[in-house]
């Protein structure tokens, strides 16, 4: 019976958590995708080597490459999993977490019940009742 209960709990946790994790996997916005594609297409080509016209001409001073100014982000960052692997790992972790919580609470409840029983039975309290004399007379063997 307990085994069936645990199976039902596992199935329930999986059912509850699967839409949650799916909801958390927010795909990156189309605007963000477009900006990445644009950035890739605008990647500067490798600088071409400029050949001097004549050997006698003075060498041109080395042109420093312009300092790349990072573009200011304009989109809102929406939290998302980095991939299916991460999503699955988190999904498995959450199922394990809730399962552990359920199992731990089950055992903790047993422990609490036992602790309460022991306390109410005054198990650890010193016995204060007056000791009676042993009614049995000593035997020859004593």
């Amino acid at each position, binding site marked *: 019976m307990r085994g069936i209960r645990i199976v039902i709990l596992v199935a329930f946790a999986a059912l509850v*958590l699967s839409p*949650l*994790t799916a*909801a*958390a996997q927010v795909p990156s916005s189309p605007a963000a995708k477009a900006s990445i594609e644009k950035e890739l297409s605008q990647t500067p080509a490798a600088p071409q080597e400029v050949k001097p016209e004549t050997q006698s001409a003075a060498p041109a001073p080395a042109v420093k490459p312009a300092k790349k100014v990072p573009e*200011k*982000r*304009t*989109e*809102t*960052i*929406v*939290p*998302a999993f*980095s991939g299916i692997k*991460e999503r699955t790992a*988190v999904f498995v972790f*959450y199922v394990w*977490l*809730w399962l552990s*919580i359920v199992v*731990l*609470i089950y055992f*903790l*409840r047993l*422990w*609490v019940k036992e*602790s*309460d029983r022991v*306390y109410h039975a005054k198990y650890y309290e010193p016995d204060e009742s007056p000791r009676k004399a042993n009614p049995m007379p000593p035997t020859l063997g004593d």
Partner: protein
Amino acid sequence: MKIDMKKVGAWFDDRLALTPIFKYMTKKEVPQHEHSIWYYTGSSILLFLAIQIVTGIMLALYYKPTLEGANDSVGRIMTDLPLGWLVRSIHSWSATFMIAFVLTHLLAIWFTKSYRKPREATWMTGMMLLVVSMVFGFTGYLLPWDDLSLSATKVGTNIPNAIPVVGKWVTQFLRGGDDVTGDTLTRFFLFHVCILPLVIFAILAVHILLVQKEGMSVPLEAEVKKKKVPALPFWPNFILREVMIWLVLLGTLLTVALVFAPTLGPSADMMAPAPAGVKPEWYFLFLFQTLKIFPGNMGPVTGEFVAVVLILVAIVAIFFLPFIDTKPEGKKGRIINYLGVLGLIYAIVFSIWSLL
């Protein structure tokens, strides 16, 4: 080499005096009655504080408290680091849970009148912890440095300006100048990760010490009628029940953080006008709405000044509540209860109004 664990234990016991603490824990008792459930709110606050410390350290490893780096570093935490967005979400949500539990704890103590003699100092340190928790939230709100956090901080740091004489100085001190700039960000970061943790630990230590010294309060009616309230040992009976509640709260927090992870707006533009619908964190909403309903001028003073003074008077009155409500079992005590209900309704209604 075999290590004698008994000797190791004795070595620590000699130096840290652990035996008296363990003896105290086993002898300590917690009253059991119909309001016992409220005892668990205190320890739950400690759980959320611990989670905030752990996640806060993780975030601080990558956060850059500079004008150029703040928003980008939070963006990097959310996109480049594995599950960085989840860590940030847990940090943010645990703050929300913590303040919700601090408020619940405070209301429970208010209505059960647990602040009565000899627990006045416990109440006052608790109030200090509430204020520090809210300042934690306020300073942390600016750190992502997006438009919303900048505007909310501008509004928040402008409030002390309404106080005559010292108001302008307080605002300048909070901002590190006349306006919210990179200096404010550095200052808030310093407060958030260095000064406030020291303050909260100091007050918390005193609060816990006082709770241990005076013990848990029993219901007022039981004290008045001098009835004996049944009790349970703290260890293991009470602590095991606490652990069960912590587990449920931990699971709930992690699930909420996963589903409702906060987003991050673009880096704040200091020259841009405030975006529409600027709102502070939920626990400041009723104060925000209170400031909004007051007219610009009220005779010789500004409406904002009147609102700030009223709020300050209310905070001071709540702080000294144990000295106002000296006879909690009498008529005065009942009036204080009604005032508590009124205050709660006011906070809820004004918060909802602010969101509309």
